[in-house]
């Protein structure tokens, strides 16, 4: 039943719902367990907990608790309200527990799922009925900031953040199952100054965990190292020793895992022109040594002092290509923000250029062109991972061409939907007045913004109503208890009622009267509470006698 619904929603997701319902391949039981525990108020539907979930590791459980609580408190997802109601009503089964955890951010979930998967394959098989929503990376970012900071983990977090592709895989494999999860989560939490860093981490981890061509990613990532160096070499041949020396120290530090000066991650800098130094040869010479350790694909970040020195040196660097500079600036500003915490503001993208020191991988071609290409490719693949989370149905797809196909289809369908909806709106309104509808739409948008609380409401309301109105058939909300007298609550209650009673049908005709009466009440309340900027039009004089008295 759940699988059927899933399929149906996957098929119809593009055209009809445009809700981002796509199922995640794996769900960790811990998420559901923790989330269910924390929202015990409204979660009467949560059935018997999975015994496997109970046996989860303590580290993950603590993390889950922090995640779950904040996830439930910050529902910023705007979709899925109806569907979750349906799924909730469909009966208590263990699979429903998964759907409750719908608010999980996709990237983190997928990244953490792998370590869990290794340990709890049986549980993961049960969890395949989960529905997830994207667009919650922000929530996760907020939650992660609550994680405790630990100096030892700062360095590991730094290393995680600076690692690309294959290295993360290596580290995961070497550390074992439960540790990477905890390390990663804590590390990510530590990097939580600005959110973009988490995005970078998320993207990297996602790319790591999900890419089935991890090797290719690894190679690309290592090529980046050499590429940046090559960029500098290509653009301006200058002295090496100074830079290499300064670079050596952070490199060693990071490699040895000490890095305790608080300059956590390396600074990757790109010199697009003068001011760059040709470290290629020296770094390669030194690179042989670290790469021998198998950690060769790092973009080293300089220490803050070095960065400042470089900035002073760099001066006005005319952009090599106008295209590259914005990205480079942004990328470096991201990384620089990571090290310095906050250099001013998001507008701290330094107008001057920063440098990305990149090391060439051992055994890789150090041709400047190929290295530049590799860096570019790495960036592109990073962004593609992000797109994978965004576009529904793209998570199972690998390969640039197919993913681009999906993206193109999705954009086309969205554009077509805009056309269709604008035509529909044109037919609905003889004149272009949208005042009341706009207010209602705002309410609807608001109510959609709180799907989790809706979920909490729906079981209570649905269970409460039949005993209240046993005699009246169908859906009558006459003595609808107004909780807090807020319109969005009413909306949510109504929508949950509708979906529960009708099994997910959208606004059947028989319920429309009661629905509209409630809407009119809402409209009256809205006009009473807030002073609308628009003027009331002809639709204004709704009979106030329609108003049903609420207690």
């Amino acid at each position, binding site marked *: 039943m759940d699988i059927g619904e899933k399929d149906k929603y996957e098929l119809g997701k593009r055209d009809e719902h445009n809700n981002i319902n796509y199922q995640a391949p794996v769900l960790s039981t811990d998420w559901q367990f923790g989330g269910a525990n924390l929202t015990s108020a409204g979660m009467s539907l949560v059935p018997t907990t999975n015994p496997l979930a109970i046996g989860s590791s303590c580290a993950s459980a603590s993390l889950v608790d922090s995640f779950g609580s904040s996830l439930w408190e910050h529902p*910023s997802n705007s979709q899925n309200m109806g569907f979750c109601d349906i799924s909730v009503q469909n009966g208590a089964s263990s699979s429903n527990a998964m759907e409750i955890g719908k608010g999980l951010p996709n990237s983190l979930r997928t990244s953490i799922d792998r370590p869990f998967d290794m340990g709890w394959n049986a549980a993961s098989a049960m969890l395949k009925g989960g529905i997830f929503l994207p667009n919650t990376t922000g929530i996760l*970012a907020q939650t992660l900031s609550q994680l405790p900071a630990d100096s030892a983990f700062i360095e590991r977090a730094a290393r995680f953040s600076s690692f690309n592709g294959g290295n993360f895989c290596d580290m995961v494999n070497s550390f074992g199952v439960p540790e990477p999860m905890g390390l990663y989560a804590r590390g990510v939490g530590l990097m939580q100054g600005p959110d973009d860093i988490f995005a970078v981490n998320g993207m990297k981890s996602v790319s790591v965990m999900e890419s089935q061509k991890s090797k290719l990613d690894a190679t690309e990532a290592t090529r980046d190292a050499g590429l940046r160096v090559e960029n500098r070499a290509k653009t301006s041949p200058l002295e090496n020793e100074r830079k290499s020396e300064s670079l050596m120290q952070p490199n060693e530090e990071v490699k040895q895992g000490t890095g305790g000066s608080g300059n956590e991650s390396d600074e990757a800098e790109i010199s697009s022109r003068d001011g760059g130094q040709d470290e290629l040869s020296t770094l390669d010479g030194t690179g042989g040594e670290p790469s021998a350790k198998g950690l060769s694909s790092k973009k080293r970040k300089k220490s803050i002092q070095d960065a400042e020195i470089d900035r002073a040196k760099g001066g006005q660097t005319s952009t090599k290509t106008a295209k590259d500079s*914005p*990205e480079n600036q942004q990328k470096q500003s991201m990384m620089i923000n990571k090290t310095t915490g906050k250099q001013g503001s*998001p*507008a701290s993208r330094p107008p001057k250029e920063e440098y990305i020191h990149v090391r060439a991988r051992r055994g890789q071609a150090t041709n400047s062109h190929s290295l530049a290409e590799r860096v570019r490719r790495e960036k*592109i693949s990073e*962004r593609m991972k992000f797109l994978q989370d965004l576009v529904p149905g793209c998570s199972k797809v690998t390969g640039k061409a197919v993913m681009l196909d999906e993206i193109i289809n999705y954009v086309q369908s969205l554009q077509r939907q805009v056309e269709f909806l604008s035509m529909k709106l044109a037919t609905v309104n003889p004149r*272009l007045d949208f005042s009341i509808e706009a207010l209602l739409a705002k309410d609807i948008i608001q109510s959609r913004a709180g799907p989790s609380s809706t979920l909490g409401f729906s079981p209570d309301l649905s269970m409460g109503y039949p005993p209240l109105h046993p005699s009246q058939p169908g859906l009558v909300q006459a003595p609808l208890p107004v909780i807090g007298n807020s319109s969005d609550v009413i909306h949510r209650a109504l929508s949950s009622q509708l979906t529960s009673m009708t099994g997910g049908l959208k606004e059947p005709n028989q319920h429309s009267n009661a629905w509209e009466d409630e*809407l009119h009440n809402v409209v009256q309340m809205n006009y009473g509470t807030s002073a609308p900027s628009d003027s009331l039009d002809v639709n204004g004089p709704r009979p106030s006698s329609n108003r049903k008295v609420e207690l």
Partner: protein
Amino acid sequence: MVTILISRMRSPFSLKQEFLKKWILGLQRCRSSKKNMSIFERKKVIKLSADVAVASARKGITCWSRALIADAVKEGNADKHLAEKILGPASERQPTEKVPVGAMAYNKRIRSKKIPKRGSVIRRTIKCAPQAARPSSIVKRLVGKRRQILRSLIPGGEFMNGVSLIEETLDYIISLRAQVDVMRSLASASKLVNLN
């Protein structure tokens, strides 16, 4: 750029609210122009105001939003007056802050960039024809073709290279999705109100 994307994904609700507000304002500005509009005119007005609202909600940070607005008000456009009316008096138009210098220049060079790009792509594909047997080149060609299609879909996409193209796509998808959600909710609300 990615920071913007992350922050946007975090708060789709605020984005929708802003879009709705701007859209209604733009529609109000257009409303007084004509008494009886045909349905197609209405649709055009609605769509145009919606697009402009979504684009202006970005406040000029992204390339596609700037390109969309620039296209709407460029000289050759038939609905230029409409777009200008929607955007409001020039004093109200949002200044484009935080724009990397290079990207700004791109918007000006609309015509000049187009032709060389296409030519170069064609030249590249012709050159690669004899080597089509290699899988990497095939993949590259496929990906390149799709990139071209994507560029044509996204407003102002012709000026973006690989990485920025994907970032712009990301942002564009988010905005489109918010736009569709708001429009759909408005349509359903209008239907409900009109049913009575």
